C-alpha cells in the first residue's frame, strides 16, 4: 500500500464519492477519477499478472499506452476484457476484475513460469511446437493459450447498440491538447468547418490540471475557456472521448466516439459508441507524445511508473503514486514530476540522472524539493517482491557506459522513469513516407505527407507548451487557407516559463555491461504487455532475426494490444546497438490502424441481426407467411421452403406438395429470378453472342432456354429468354446470378461491342412471377385469363402470350421446369399478390397446392434439370449433357475456349442420376466410390442434389461422375465420411421421370 489520495488538488470532485469494486472488493473514488487513479488512491499495487511469466504488475502510465493495468469491466453480457485502467472513467458501481491470474491476483500459480524463464524466451513456440514436433502443438495449444493470455470475452450477445455516422469538414483536428485547441481556434475563426476530436473525457491534453499560467489564467482554465469558445461556434463540431484511429484514402478517417462508456449503462436510445467516417480536406495531427521507459533489471515491478504519469496522477487526480518517490530520467522534461510532487507535498527521495549536467531550472527544482540529486548515475535494478522496495544506483560514464561498481541501494516505493518522449506519429505514418529521425530529440518525427495533413505540437517534436500554442495557431491558419479561407491573425497566449523536455541523453539500456546476457540478474523488460525482455532482443539478433520486421514477429515485441506504444523505441535501440548501427539505420516499422483497439460492435454499427444485410421479399411474401410457409434465405431473398401442415415434417410436406403437382396442379413463387429487359435493333444479335445457343431466329411470341458460358468456356448461367417484339426481349437469369449477369451484359455493350444498339435494364423487381404446373393447369388458368386462348394449338410449348388475368395485364409463357404441363405468369409487382390469390381461388376446385423450394427441387431433380449445385463454375455444357446447346456455328462468349483439352477430356465428371438401393437418403456432397475398391477409396465424383422422389417412390440424386454416361447400371457407394454415412446407389440416366417429355407437351 503505497499510493494515497492527497488532501487537495486535482480535477476530481471530492464532494461526489463513487463506490466501485475491483476483484469483488469495494473501494471509493471520486467523480473525475479514472479507474487507475482511484485504485492508485486506494493503495492497490497489483492490478494484473503479466502475459507469459505471470509477474505481478501495477499501474505504469496514465493513458492509452498502458501495458500493464488491463482489466475486465462489467459483467454478464456487458463483460469487456482488456480495458486499460487509465482510460476507464470511474462511475458509481463500476465492476472491474483483474486478468490472467489463477487462482487469485495475490497468489498466482502460473508465476512458476518465471522460474522457467528461458523456456518462454523469443521463438519459444516456433522452436518447440512448429518444428519437427509439430503435432505437439495440437496437444498443448489449449493449455498454452490458457496460461499465456489476457481477459476472456463473453459469449453472450452484446445488449448495447452502436451508431454509425458521417461527417464532412474542411479541417479535422486529431487531438485536443494545447496545439489542437489552438489550431481549432485559428481555423474556426476563418469560417472553415472544423471537427475537433480528442480521446479523453475533457479536452486540454497536457494542460489539464496543470498550474502553468497560460494567458491570464492557469492552464486548465485556459483549456475550458477555449473549449467554451469553440462550442459556441456553429462551424465547429467537438468530439470528446473520440479516437481518430485510422487514416484512409482521399483524407477519409475512421473515428470512434465512446458515447456511454463512462456510464453504468447507456441511457435510453443512446448508443454505447458511435463510429464516425470523416472526410476532411485537411487534417491537423495534434496527437501529442508518449513517454518511454528505461531498461534495467526489475523495471516491471509494481511501483515503477512513467514519470509524467506520476505527475498527472498528482496534478490531475490528486493522487500520490508513492510515499518515497525517486526519479530516474535522462532528460529535463521529467523534472516537471519533481516539481509537481514537491508542490503536492509528496516526498521525493532522490533524482538519478545519467547526464553529468542538467538544466539549471531542473537543478533548482530538485534543490527546492529536498531530494538528493545523483547525476552521472543510473538505476541498474529495482527490487522488491509484490511491490518496489528499493532501487540500486550505479555510476555511469557516457563514454564507457554503466560502471560495474558496487551499487548503492536506496529505499523507495515508487520510481518515476523517463527515457524521453516518443512523438505519436501513428496517424501520420499511415499517410506518409518513412518517419524522420531527429537526433536532438532521439525520436522519430512524421515523414513527408502523402496526403494533405500537417503535424503540430509534441507529435511534431514541439515539446513546450509555448511552442505548441504558437505552432497550433500557424497550423490551424494554414489548414484553413488550404481550404480557401482567409484566417485573420490571432495572438499567442503568453506562457509562464516551464521545464522543457530538451537536452536528452539517448540512454536506453541501464544494465551494467556484464549483466546483459541471458543469465543476467533479473529480467529487464522492453515490452511489458508481451513480456519481451532485453535479452529476447539479443537472442533474436543472435539467431538472425535482425531486421525490425523480423525482430517484431520473432519476439512479438510491439504486437500486443498496446501496439508497442511504450516499447518500440527501446526495442529498436537495443537492436541497433546489437548490430552496431544507428537507430535510423535500423529503421522503424509502419503503424497500421487502429491506433487503439476498437470494439467490433462499433465497426458493425447497426449492421447486425436483421439489419446485417438488406432483406428482399417477393410481392407474395405476406401470402406465404399467412399460409404458414417455412421461409428460408436465398441470397438476400426470403423464399418459402415448404408449406407445412399440422404435424408434418419438412420431408412429408415437400413430398405432398410435389405429388400434388404431378397429380393435379401447384403454384410456386419464382419472382426472385433475375429479369433483364433487352431492347434495341441489335438485341437479337447481342443475345446470339452471349448465349451458346442460337437466338437470331427466335420468333416473336416464343421463349427459348439459353446457356451462358464464361469467357474461359465453363458454364455460367441458364434461363429462358422471351421474344416480346422484333427489338424487345425479356431475359431471365438464375436468382443467384441476376446482378452479375446484368453487370456483364453492361460491360459487353460498353467495352466489347460498343457499336451494338442495345440497352439492358434490370426489371427483376418490376415483375412478380409464378409458375403454375400440373395436369390441371390449363383448366385453372383458362378460368382466370380473360383473353388468351389456352389450347395446345393456339398456345404451344415455349409460347409467350400477352393478355389479362381478371383485368390485370399479364405475360404468360408456357415453360416447364417441373416436367408437367406448366405456365409462368408474370404481372406487375404491385399486382403479384392479387394475381396469386386469383389463381389459388380458381385452382381450389382442383386442390391447387402452393409449393416451396424443396418441392421445386424434387420436381426438377426427377426431370434431371440442372440448377445451382450443378452449375458450380467447374462444369461445362457437355458435362451436364447440354453439349448440343453449345453451337459450333457461331462465335459467342466462351466459344473460343470451351474446346480446350482439359474441358473436352473423355474422363471428365459428367451428370448422372443416382438411385438409392437401400432406401436411405443420399446426402448432397457425398463422394461416389467403388463398393469394394482400394482403401482409402478414390473419389469418382460427388452428389450435387438429392431428394425423395414421390414419382419413383425412392431416394434419388443427381451427381457428377467420372465417365458417368458409361457407368450407367453400375453400383457405387455414396459416402459421407464426416457423418459416417454410406449409401449404396445405382447409376442411372439423369432423366428419371418421363424422359420423353410427354407430360409437358399435352
Amino acid at each position: 500500500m503505497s499510493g494515497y489520495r492527497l488532501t487537495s488538488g486535482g480535477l476530481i470532485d471530492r464532494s461526489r464519492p463513487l463506490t466501485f469494486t475491483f476483484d469483488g472488493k469495494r473501494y471509493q473514488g471520486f467523480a473525475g477519477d479514472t479507474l487507475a487513479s482511484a485504485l492508485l488512491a486506494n493503495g492497490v499495487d497489483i492490478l494484473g499478472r503479466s502475459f507469459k511469466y505471470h509477474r505481478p504488475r501495477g499501474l505504469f502510465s496514465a493513458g492509452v499506452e498502458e501495458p500493464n493495468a488491463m482489466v475486465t469491466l462489467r459483467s454478464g453480457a456487458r463483460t469487456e476484457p482488456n480495458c486499460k485502467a487509465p482510460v476507464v472513467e470511474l462511475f458509481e458501481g463500476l465492476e472491474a476484475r483483474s486478468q490472467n491470474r489463477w487462482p487469485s491476483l495475490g497468489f498466482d500459480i502460473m508465476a512458476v513460469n518465471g522460474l522457467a524463464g528461458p523456456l518462454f524466451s523469443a521463438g519459444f513456440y516456433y522452436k518447440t511446437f512448429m518444428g519437427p514436433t509439430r503435432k505437439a502443438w495440437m496437444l498443448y495449444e489449449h493449455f498454452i493459450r490458457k496460461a499465456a493470455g489476457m481477459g476472456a470475452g463473453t459469449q453472450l450477445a452484446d445488449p448495447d447498440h452502436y451508431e454509425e455516422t458521417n461527417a464532412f469538414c474542411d479541417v479535422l483536428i486529431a487531438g485536443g491538447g494545447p496545439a489542437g485547441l489552438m489550431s481549432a481556434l485559428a481555423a474556426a475563426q476563418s469560417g472553415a468547418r472544423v471537427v475537433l476530436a480528442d480521446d479523453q473525457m475533457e479536452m486540454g491534453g497536457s494542460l489539464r490540471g496543470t498550474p502553468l499560467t497560460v494567458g491570464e489564467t492557469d492552464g486548465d482554465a485556459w483549456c475550458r475557456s477555449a473549449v467554451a469558445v469553440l462550442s459556441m461556434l456553429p462551424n465547429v463540431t467537438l468530439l470528446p472521448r473520440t479516437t481518430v484511429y485510422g487514416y484512409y484514402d482521399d483524407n477519409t478517417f475512421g473515428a470512434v466516439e465512446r458515447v456511454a462508456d463512462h456510464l453504468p449503462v447507456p441511457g435510453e436510445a443512446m448508443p454505447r459508441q458511435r463510429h464516425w467516417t470523416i472526410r476532411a480536406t485537411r487534417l491537423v495531427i495534434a496527437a501529442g507524445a508518449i513517454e518511454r521507459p528505461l531498461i534495467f533489471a526489475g523495471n516491471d515491478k509494481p511501483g515503477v511508473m512513467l514519470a509524467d504519469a506520476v505527475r498527472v496522477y498528482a496534478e490531475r487526480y490528486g493522487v500520490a503514486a508513492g510515499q518515497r518517490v525517486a526519479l530516474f530520467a535522462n532528460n529535463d522534461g521529467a523534472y516537471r514530476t519533481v516539481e509537481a510532487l514537491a508542490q503536492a507535498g509528496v516526498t521525493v527521495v532522490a533524482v538519478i540522472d545519467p547526464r553529468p549536467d542538467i538544466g539549471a531550472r531542473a537543478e533548482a527544482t530538485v534543490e527546492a524539493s529536498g531530494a538528493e540529486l545523483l547525476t552521472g548515475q543510473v538505476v541498474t535494478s529495482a527490487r522488491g517482491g509484490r511491490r518496489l522496495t528499493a532501487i540500486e544506483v550505479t555510476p555511469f560514464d557516457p563514454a564507457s557506459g554503466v560502471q560495474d561498481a558496487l551499487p548503492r541501494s536506496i529505499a523507495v516505493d515508487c520510481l518515476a522513469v523517463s527515457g524521453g518522449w516518443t512523438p505519436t506519429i501513428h496517424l501520420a505514418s499511415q499517410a506518409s513516407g518513412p518517419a524522420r529521425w531527429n537526433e536532438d530529440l532521439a525520436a522519430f518525427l512524421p515523414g513527408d505527407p502523402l496526403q494533405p495533413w500537417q503535424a503540430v505540437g509534441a507529435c511534431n517534436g514541439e515539446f513546450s507548451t509555448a511552442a505548441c500554442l504558437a505552432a497550433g495557431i500557424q497550423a490551424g491558419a494554414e489548414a484553413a487557407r488550404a481550404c480557401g479561407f482567409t484566417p485573420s491573425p490571432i495572438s499567442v497566449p503568453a506562457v509562464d516559463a516551464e521545464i522543457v523536455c530538451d537536452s536528452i541523453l539517448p540512454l536506453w539500456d541501464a544494465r551494467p555491461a556484464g549483466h546483459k546476457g541471458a543469465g543476467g540478474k533479473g529480467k529487464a523488460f522492453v515490452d511489458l504487455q508481451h513480456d519481451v525482455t532485453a535479452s529476447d532482443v539479443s537472442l533474436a539478433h543472435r539467431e538472425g532475426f535482425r531486421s525490425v520486421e523480423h525482430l517484431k514477429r520473432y519476439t512479438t515485441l510491439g504486437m500486443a494490444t498496446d501496439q508497442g506504444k511504450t516499447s518500440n523505441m527501446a526495442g529498436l535501440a537495443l537492436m541497433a546497438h546489437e548490430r552496431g548501427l544507428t537507430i535510423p539505420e535500423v529503421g522503424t516499422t509502419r503503424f497500421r490502424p487502429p491506433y487503439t483497439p476498437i470494439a467490433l460492435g462499433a465497426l458493425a454499427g447497426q449492421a447486425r441481426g436483421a439489419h446485417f444485410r438488406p432483406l428482399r421479399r417477393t410481392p407474395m411474401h405476406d401470402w406465404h407467411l399467412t399460409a404458414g410457409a417455412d421461409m428460408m434465405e436465398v441470397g438476400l431473398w426470403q423464399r418459402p421452403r415448404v408449406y407445412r401442415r399440422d404435424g408434418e415434417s419438412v420431408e412429408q410436406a415437400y413430398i405432398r406438395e410435389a405429388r400434388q403437382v404431378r397429380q393435379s396442379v401447384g403454384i410456386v413463387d419464382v419472382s426472385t429470378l433475375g429479369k433483364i429487359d433487352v431492347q434495341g435493333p441489335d438485341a437479337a444479335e447481342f443475345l446470339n453472342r452471349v448465349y451458346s445457343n442460337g437466338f437470331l431466329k427466335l420468333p416473336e411470341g416464343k421463349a427459348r432456354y439459353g446457356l451462358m458460358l464464361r469467357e474461359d468456356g465453363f458454364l455460367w448461367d441458364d434461363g429462358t429468354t422471351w421474344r416480346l417484339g422484333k427489338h424487345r426481349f425479356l431475359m431471365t437469369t438464375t436468382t443467384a446470378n441476376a446482378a452479375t449477369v446484368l453487370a456483364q451484359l453492361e460491360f459487353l455493350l460498353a467495352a466489347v461491342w460498343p457499336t451494338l444498339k442495345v440497352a439492358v435494364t434490370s426489371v427483376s423487381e418490376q415483375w412478380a412471377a409464378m409458375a403454375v404446373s400440373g395436369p390441371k393447369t390449363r383448366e385453372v388458368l383458362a378460368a382466370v385469363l380473360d383473353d388468351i386462348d389456352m389450347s395446345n394449338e393456339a398456345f404451344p410449348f415455349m409460347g409467350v402470350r400477352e393478355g389479362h388475368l381478371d383485368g390485370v395485364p399479364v405475360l404468360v409463357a408456357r415453360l416447364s421446369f417441373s416436367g408437367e404441363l406448366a405456365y409462368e405468369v408474370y404481372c406487375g409487382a404491385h399486382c403479384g399478390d392479387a394475381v396469386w390469390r386469383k389463381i389459388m381461388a380458381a385452382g381450389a376446385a382442383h386442390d391447387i397446392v402452393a409449393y416451396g423450394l424443396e418441392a421445386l427441387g424434387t420436381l426438377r431433380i426427377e426431370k434431371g434439370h440442372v440448377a445451382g449445385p450443378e452449375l458450380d463454375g467447374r462444369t461445362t455444357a457437355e458435362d451436364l449433357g447440354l453439349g448440343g446447346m453449345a453451337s459450333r456455328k457461331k462465335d459467342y462468349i466462351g466459344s473460343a475456349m470451351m474446346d480446350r483439352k482439359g474441358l473436352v477430356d473423355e474422363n471428365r465428371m459428367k451428370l448422372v442420376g443416382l438411385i438409392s438401393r437401400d432406401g436411405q437418403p443420399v446426402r448432397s456432397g457425398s463422394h461416389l466410390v467403388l463398393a469394394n475398391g482400394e482403401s482409402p477409396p478414390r473419389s469418382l465424383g460427388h452428389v450435387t442434389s438429392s431428394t425423395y422422389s414421390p414419382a419413383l417412390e425412392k431416394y434419388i440424386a443427381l451427381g457428377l461422375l467420372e465417365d458417368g454416361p458409361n457407368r450407367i447400371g453400375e453400383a457405387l457407394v455414396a459416402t459421407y465420411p464426416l457423418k459416417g454415412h454410406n449409401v449404396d446407389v445405382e447409376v442411372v440416366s439423369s432423366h428419371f421421370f418421363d424422359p420423353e417429355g410427354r407430360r409437358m407437351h399435352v
Partner: protein
Amino acid sequence: MLIPCPHCGPRDVGEFTYGGDATKERPDPGSAGAADWCDYVFQRENLRGTHLEYWHHAQGCRLWLRVRRDTVTHKIEAAEIVGPWAAATVRETGNDEGQDVA
C-alpha cells in the same frame, strides 16, 4: 477512395465494382489463336504504379468507367466513360467536380 465518375461526380469506392485490367482487348474470334485467348482471359500484370482499370458504377449510374489509378498511392489521374455513352454524358458542373480531389 473516391472515384470521379464523369456522370455523377466524385463518389465513394463502395458504390463501384472493380472490373480488372482495362488494357486487355477481347481478341477477334475470327483470327485469334489459343495464346491470344489465354492472354486475354488469364494473364494479368500486377503493376506497381499507374494502372488502367475498369470500374463499374454499379450503385450509381451503372456506367462502366476506365480509370487510371496509381496502385501505390491510389491516386486517380483520370476516369472516363466506356462505350457509346462516352461522348454524350459529361456533366456540366461549373466547378472542378468530377476531377480528382486527392
